[in-house]
């Protein structure tokens, strides 16, 4: 029989401190029962010092006071029941159903913290996923099992882009391989959550989606568990049930802010901008759960979305994310303001895994060269634009004028595409060649003569 405690010494933000406690373990889950109503809040032991214990509460701590609640130690770590029945269901940030459906019953339980995958057990991801979006497929190719975040800003269409990817991307190799979506909303507006729900409906995948939702007005502390619950479900479906899972998670920025709040309640020494020094490791404990395993079907492809405060890519949240993920898709405000959708800023965007997933046998033999050339030429466009700002477009050299034309066409035709428009990779590559042919051949130093022979549009 586990002991119960009545005395709360201190409540600081999402943390409570109790004393004179015996026989609890680090990470143990506690139930905090409000005596008057019988309402149960959940929490977790995050520090033990002699007989003093600090508990992080996942619900609102308002109203908690000495004497009005009973604290029960459950003797369990934070486990969730796992089953295929998770699919089609909606849960809150600590894994309780919020869709009026029944509880999940299963003998299989998993600890939401997960454990590190042994690098020996991983399979290096190499399979191209066609998203139907030219900029991504050609220049920042998504690979099955990759963690590829979308770096966005407030008001930019990251939700639309994620929804379009969910709708258009083909995850599995063939019909036998099951796929599914795990969606985690962390501190999002009700509208945003509705938007995703509607897009899943439209994409006809609702019965394959597991949703974990923590709304903007839900407790902060629950934001820390929301992604962990979601990834635990994803790991179960991918590695035990051998499905190809796409995890969409928004907004990592809310997650990090919650971390910061808890850290400051714990009076920890902050590092940059008040975020805790362990934020890198903490984010890694989420992102690294993506991947594939050797000799078995199933994968977790991870698309976290984050809004960069002030559109600043050097802010700790995008910065630490970029250091962990396998590239990033960056959205640009200037493109957005010029009505280009999706406003993918290709130069800072990168897919580190694309090298092994493109080319002959995956996409097409010229893919790497076309991508390289588009990057090189478009980066030259930026230089020429800077120059034309100073001396005027009229006074540019003839070659530079061609760069200006190429830049405009590239943005209008290649980057820009419809929310409902899917282009296959061959169409995208051909379009790339078409646009490159606006430049003099002598400028195209990343293309080999063989590919130029084969693909360069012949002028009529």
């Amino acid at each position, binding site marked *: 029989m586990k002991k119960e405690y009545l005395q709360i010494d201190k409540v600081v933000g999402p943390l409570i401190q109790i004393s004179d406690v015996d026989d609890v373990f680090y*990470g143990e889950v506690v139930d905090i029962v409000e005596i008057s109503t019988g309402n149960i809040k959940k929490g977790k032991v995050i520090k033990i010092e002699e007989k003093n214990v600090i508990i992080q509460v996942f619900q609102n701590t308002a109203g908690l006071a000495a004497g009005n609640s009973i604290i029960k130690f459950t003797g369990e770590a934070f486990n969730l029941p796992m089953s295929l029945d998770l699919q089609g269901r909606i849960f809150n940030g600590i894994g309780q159903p919020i869709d009026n459906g029944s509880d999940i019953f299963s003998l299989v339980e998993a600890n939401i*913290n997960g454990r*590190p*995958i042994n690098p020996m057990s*991983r399979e290096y991801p190499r399979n191209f996923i066609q998203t139907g979006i030219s900029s991504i497929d050609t220049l920042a190719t998504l690979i099955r099992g990759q963690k590829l975040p979308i770096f966005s800003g407030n008001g930019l269409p990251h939700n639309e882009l994620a929804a379009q990817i969910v709708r258009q991307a083909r995850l599995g190799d063939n019909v036998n391989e099951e796929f599914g979506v795990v969606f985690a909303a962390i501190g999002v507006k009700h509208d945003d959550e509705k938007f995703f729900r509607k897009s899943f409906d439209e994409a006809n995948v609702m019965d394959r989606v597991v949703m974990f939702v923590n709304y903007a007005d839900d407790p902060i502390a629950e934001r820390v568990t929301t992604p962990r619950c979601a990834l635990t479900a994803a790991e179960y479906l991918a590695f035990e049930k051998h499905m190809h899972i796409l995890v969409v998670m928004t907004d990592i920025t809310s997650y990090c802010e919650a971390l910061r709040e808890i850290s400051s309640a714990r009076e920890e020494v902050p590092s940059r901008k008040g975020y805790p020094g362990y934020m890198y490791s903490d984010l890694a404990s989420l992102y690294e759960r993506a991947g594939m395993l050797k000799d078995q079907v199933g994968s977790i492809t991870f698309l976290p979305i984050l809004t960069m405060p002030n559109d600043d890519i050097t802010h700790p949240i995008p910065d630490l994310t970029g250091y962990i993920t396998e590239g990033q898709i960056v959205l640009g405000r200037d493109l957005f303001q010029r009505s280009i959708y999706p406003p993918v800023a290709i130069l800072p965007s990168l897919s580190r895994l694309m090298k092994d997933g493109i080319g002959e046998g995956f996409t097409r033999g010229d893919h790497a060269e076309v991508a390289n050339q588009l990057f090189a030429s478009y980066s030259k466009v930026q230089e020429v634009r800077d120059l034309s700002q100073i*001396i005027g477009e009229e*006074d540019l050299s003839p070659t530079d004028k061609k760069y200006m034309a190429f830049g405009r066409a590239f943005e209008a035709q290649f980057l820009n595409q419809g929310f409902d428009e899917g282009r296959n990779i061959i169409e995208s590559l051909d379009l790339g060649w078409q646009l490159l042919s606006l430049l003099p051949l002598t400028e195209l*130093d990343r293309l080999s003569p063989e590919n130029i022979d084969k693909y360069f549009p012949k002028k009529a």
Partner: protein
Amino acid sequence: MAVKQENKAKGIISAINGPVIKGKNMTSFKMREMVTVGEQRLIGEVIVLEGDIGTIQVYEETEGLKTGQEITPTGRPLSLKLGPGMLKNMFDGIQRPLEKIQELSPIFIPEGIGLLSIDDKKLWSATLTVKPGDLLLAGSSFGTVQETQVIKNRLLVPPNLSGTVVSVVPDGEYTIEDALVTIRDAKNELHELKMAHEWPVRTPRPNAYRRETLVPLITGQRVIDIFFPIAKGGTAAIPGGFGTGKTMTQHQLAKWSDADIIVYIGCGERGNEMTEVIEDFPKLIDPRSGKSIMERTVLIANTSNMPVAAREASIYTGITIAEYYRDMGYAVAMMADSTSRWAEALREISGRLEEMPAEEGYPAYLPSRIAEFYERAGSIETLGGDDGSITIIGAVSPAGGDFSEPVTENTKRFVNVFLALDKSLAYARHYPAINWLESYSGYIKILSDWYEDNVAPDCITLRNKMLELMYEENKLQEMVMLVGEDVLPDDQRWVLEIAKIIKVGYLQQNAYNKDDTYVPLEKQYAMLKAIEYLYERGREGLKLGIPTSQLKNVDIFSQFIKMKYTIPNDDLSGIETLKDEIDQYYEVLFKKYEN
């Protein structure tokens, strides 16, 4: 070395805070002693002792630990077992083989698996080179084992032992735990020598003396070998924001550099990157040995989601393994990707200890830890009288890509080569994105003799000249950004044209191209020499008043840009042909203008 553990007092856990725990009743424990903690016997190390209270950093997940559980001493500091069986293997931060962990738990790494180390069941074919009566000094060799196809493990007397050989087993098959030689030391005590011996990770292994480093580590990467060379036994840092190419550069060095042994530490980085190494390295053939490069490689992986205390230890595990092979007389190159994650692990532990932070939350001892680490590099004479060296190449991941943060700044103080990666080069897909203006090598002077003797007498002069041209180009570009290129005089435009060839045709080196990924020094030199030739011939034309637009022959220029792909690494005759073409073209052109 069996310690009677039962007799030593056990500690009692009194506080738990993430990877840091406290214990009571620890008066008999020693500082830096390795301990096991709790029912699962998690592995930890004593990092503070105050009265009977001890603080321990735990190398495994601490979820599930309770106060009141036992802390058991092991009687020795955190140590590695050094012996054959490390090459071709991947270990976690405290030298536990990930392959063995996988046998115990197929997918995820659980806690409480205990102390595993190199295989003690495997039989190795040992050749013993000593006989009774021989005097064996500390660090000398008493036999050999062919550890992999390319590396002979020279069985070493531990650095803290010496004596006269009493008995020797015959050559044959033994495990690392079998006694092979018995020696009698000066105090008349007998010691058994085995293939493996233990060594504490935080104590540098001794050597006879340090010497100057006079030979470069040849990497096959043009921007490094020609412009910013690293000496064998030297130190280098590769700082850069995310996605600028630190790992790619480290992988390139691990694959192609001409060290005998590679120790690669994935310190707080991605799991997939270690998987990639495991999948790719065995398939790559070392141009020197003709065998797979995995045959000379030891991997250490503490990925970013593994326990942070083991990240702190992983760097020491790596360098100790490097020193072990150095002591056999090998040139070892060690890559640490990324040292920033190690520094952050220090910061996290320090934070949990509630130490007074210095800059950005890092502990005040950060600079001294960085210095101590890089000081374990060097060219030395081993105790056994051989030449050995350790070259350390550390990646640095500055927060926000800003080089003025504490880890980059302090690293810069203690390394001699600085390969600064540049975000804007990476955005333009100029790879490797090593910024030639910000990078430097402090080894140019001491290595110039080597380059002049082994590559070409004018190699360093050529390098300096071309680097100056790049500096000039940078100044000119600033002007171009203000007024456009057309207004520049022709001699300056010619500099811009040549600089473009150097950038695209020379400094850019595609790691994914099968020929360009590794380029022999002769070709590196010949390519740059050819560019200089074009530059000088063009300047003759400028004197005749020929405009840059005429001097720039599109066909020749495109051949220059592509010569890295079109001229085979083992047949440089194409470069002479290219020079002939330049001569032919300019002869005709100059004639026109001479009249």
